[in-house]
């Protein structure tokens, strides 16, 4: 089991009090083989040409970035001024986005389809409250509008 570092312990303290008394539950509305799936990755992955590309993603950047579902994995960049986790994302972007794995699952009929877009949020977010109150609901609204059945959250 991973023991949190001092910075992670600080992050976990920011989560205190965020627990929902009643945890929401949504059963699948149909077979997984007919479901539309979106990835939400706490990842530094950016798409080539993203305005953030040239300056790097600032530590704590709370913004969500859209990743087109048809993106060439090789076009993804894992560039930031952060620390841990970036190396793995650079080693293979599928770790960050798992798109190839999900694409294969769709091709095999295990999943219905992938959503037209996926979302990436820089992992070590400093503005936790901003994410919880504003960014995450906004992201959920986007996926709801896209009629996504399953959102798969993958940390970097």
């Amino acid at each position, binding site marked *: *089991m*991973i023991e*949190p570092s001092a910075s*992670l312990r600080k992050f*976990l303290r920011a*989560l*205190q009090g*965020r*627990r*929902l008394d009643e*945890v*929401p*539950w*949504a*059963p*699948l509305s149909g077979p*997984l083989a007919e479901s539309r799936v979106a990835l939400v990755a706490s990842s530094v992955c950016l798409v080539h040409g993203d305005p953030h590309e040239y300056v790097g993603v600032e530590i704590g950047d709370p913004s969500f970035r859209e990743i087109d579902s048809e993106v060439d994995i090789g076009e993804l960049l894992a560039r930031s001024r952060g620390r*841990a*986790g*970036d*190396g*793995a*994302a650079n*080693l*293979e972007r*599928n*770790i960050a986005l*798992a798109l*190839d*794995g*999900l694409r*294969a*699952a769709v091709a095999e009929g*295990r*999943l219905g389809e992938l959503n037209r877009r996926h979302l990436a949020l820089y992992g070590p977010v400093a503005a936790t409250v901003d994410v919880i109150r504003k960014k995450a609901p906004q992201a959920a609204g986007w996926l709801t509008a896209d009629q996504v059945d*399953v*959102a*798969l*959250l*993958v*940390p*970097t």
Partner: protein
Amino acid sequence: MVLQLLHAALAEVRPPRSLWVPFRSGYALGSPNDPEYRRAVLEAAFEMLEDASLTAPALRDYSTRD
């Protein structure tokens, strides 16, 4: 459906469905360039989604998977 590296975060936030994965930071789907293993992790998540017996908050430990 959440994959999570930090057990402490799961305990604090309690997402509806969580699969705790016993990997280090940056490797939530296992080692690089191992698509079979990565698919196995994803499959464990798929199985949680399909398990109608689960109730919130549902947490599984990937390391104990057969």
